[in-house]
């Protein structure tokens, strides 16, 4: 009986609390801190080139095998990233690749509205991954 009374007052109190849900396209909320969105390739701010050297560790540690990396030898004899491909239809946003990257060349962006009509569009190439990811937490 006491529990019922307690429940009743919780229910009554809920009338004066703010709703927790929003109606998606009309109302927006701030994306929670450190939430994981699509992968982003970092750029070197001085040379504006990709930091990644194409070592391929991320594709090795990826549990879903959704990252495809190819490297080539650059003009100065160092390894340069040639192809970086991410299959978002497979990605589970575990963040393993970010953690294992020695160069700290990739990070998880806050971009998460990733729905597409065509599966082919979910295959992101290097150019698309370099695009500014909305690093700052944006609204929906």
């Amino acid at each position, binding site marked *: 009986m006491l529990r*019922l009374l307690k*429940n*009743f007052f919780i*229910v009554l109190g*809920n*009338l004066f609390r703010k*709703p927790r*849900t929003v109606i998606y396209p009309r109302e927006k909320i701030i994306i929670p801190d450190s939430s994981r969105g699509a992968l982003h390739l970092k750029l070197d701010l001085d040379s504006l080139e990709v930091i990644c050297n194409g070592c391929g560790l991320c594709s090795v540690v990826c549990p879903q095998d959704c990252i495809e990396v190819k490297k080539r030898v650059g003009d100065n004899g160092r390894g340069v990233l040639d192809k970086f491909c991410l299959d978002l239809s497979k990605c589970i946003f575990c963040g393993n690749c970010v953690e294992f990257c020695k160069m700290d060349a990739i990070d998880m962006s806050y971009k998460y509205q990733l729905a597409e009509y065509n599966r082919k569009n979910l295959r992101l190439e290097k150019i698309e991954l370099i695009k500014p990811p909305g690093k700052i937490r944006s609204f929906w």
Partner: protein
Amino acid sequence: MLYILKKIFYIFAVLVVNLYICEYIGNKLAARIELRRGYRTTIIRGAGFPLIRSFKYLSRDSRINIWTFFIFLLSFLIWSAVPITANLVLVEMDYSLPVAITFYIGLIIVLFLNSSRTSYSAVFSEASKKVLILLSFLIPVLFSIISIVLISKTLSLKEIVNSQYQYWNIIFQPLGFITFFISLFLQLKLLGISRKSYLSAETDIGKEGIGLGKIVEKISVYMIVFFSIIILNILYLGGWQNIYFIRGEIALAVKFYFIFILLLLMDKTIGRIDSYKLLVRINWKFLIPVSLFNFIVTLGFFVARDVYSLI
């Protein structure tokens, strides 16, 4: 003739407006209680939502049976005997209380017949169990009503209200009120106020051919809710008696919505009761004994006073 038509129009208007407001309050409150936004289909914060929902049902194919017609008829016929206010009653009679209860029971039985698809399922289905429980909840209600009738010495609802000009019956019959209210609440719980009706649990909007029938069923459930609250008001809370300077009709409306919101809150507090054994236990171990005790005490009081002149 014109006079009766005018009355029918007024009763119909009151019911429809009430239906709209209650549906709106129900949706809004249910959403707020569950900490969600609620319906905002229309621009004015969902004020047009009940209308839109009814259109949603109406636009579907409907395959109605004969019971749907009876449900519709009874849900409005139930108001022929019950006075909404002092003058707003279709047929003034001395036995309005038993007539109203008969209509109420009839409506429940017709709802049950509508919910069962075949004659076999009518007897053996889960719905029959629910209806039997629903009807067994009428036993404490009847005991409470008989106690009120003993006090007021009349079977007319109008005269029961008039007899409460000084004190409301809730002062003389607190136990009766509690049992009446709880059994009423559990009946409404079985019928489903804010959730999907228990009786019509099988019919879903996704299914074929339940457009118009569903609306009629929903209206009938609302009519049962209105009827129960009005009867509770009339029997225990002074009906349309003026409270100081407040007009009786306004007082009745305030009491009506207060009880309606209270029922909604209680409905959300308790959640869905799936165990019928629990309901049966509440009824037979608490409600019926308490209401019977209340009835015996009331009867004993009148016997001691009127027959033996002890009090």
